């Protein structure tokens, strides 16, 4: 299901769109509490994963072969929009491999690396219970309809 962009981050994202300027990187985090993202949320609404080998991931605010892909028009991936044509970009796939102690991962959130403002959050369609040796792959995708 599409990620929720909370009300609190909408002015920031709109400013980025209109004025550009120095853009802070984003941090991608997995969460281990069974929470459906709401538009009123902040980062305090989620509890970060802590399985063995867990690390947060940095999403660099750039377009390149190793960061966000060049935005392209096409049909919405996974039917997130009713429009026939939208613009989408994906970030290089991020992976985590669980060590000795696992977690059940319910979703992820993205926050400003400097501001720590919640940018977006998503509950997975199915929670992922990670045990030793299990890998979780996640491909962030942003679209504009």
């Amino acid at each position, binding site marked *: *299901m*599409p*990620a*929720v*962009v*909370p*009300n*609190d981050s909408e002015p920031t994202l709109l400013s980025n769109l209109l004025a550009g300027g120095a853009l802070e990187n984003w941090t991608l985090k997995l969460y281990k*509490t*069974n*929470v*459906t*993202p*709401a*538009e*009123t*949320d*902040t980062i*305090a*609404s989620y509890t970060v994963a802590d399985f063995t080998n867990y690390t947060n991931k940095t999403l660099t605010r750039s377009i390149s072969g190793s960061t966000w892909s060049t935005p392209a028009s096409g049909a*919405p*991936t*996974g*039917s*997130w929009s009713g429009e026939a044509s939208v613009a989408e970009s994906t970030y290089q796939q991020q992976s985590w491999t669980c060590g000795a102690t696992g977690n059940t991962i319910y*979703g*992820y959130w993205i926050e400003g690396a400097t501001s720590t403002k919640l940018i977006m959050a*998503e*509950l*997975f*369609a*199915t929670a*992922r219970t990670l045990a030793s040796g299990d890998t*979780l*792959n*996640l*491909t*962030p*995708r942003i679209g504009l309809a």
Partner: protein
Amino acid sequence: MPDLLWQPTRNGQWVKFKATLPSGVANRQDGGLPAVHTTRDGWLVGIFSRGGADATGELRPSRVHLVAVTGENVEYLSPAGKLENVAFLPEEISVWMPLLDPADLPPGRPLPAGASLLP
């Protein structure tokens, strides 16, 4: 008076609604399961999630996730023996309305300072 034609449009929107709970879900706190949260006038409370593919590529339809007093999703043991979230498809909800009063939010997930539920 609820508008019987109203449907949520915003992903992540708080709603209050009437629906039949799956068997096995009760307003209880025994067994470590958090109690189902209700508004002061007895409506269930949930968050609308728009359908589509998630970041792992798995597809799900639009649904309303039932919320507990802790603010987390309510889980139950399905007939298949799996622990699942209590979630309702739009056609399983008899009536729903936007939740607009912060006092009706679950105590474990209060409205942040400066935030609003108003559209």
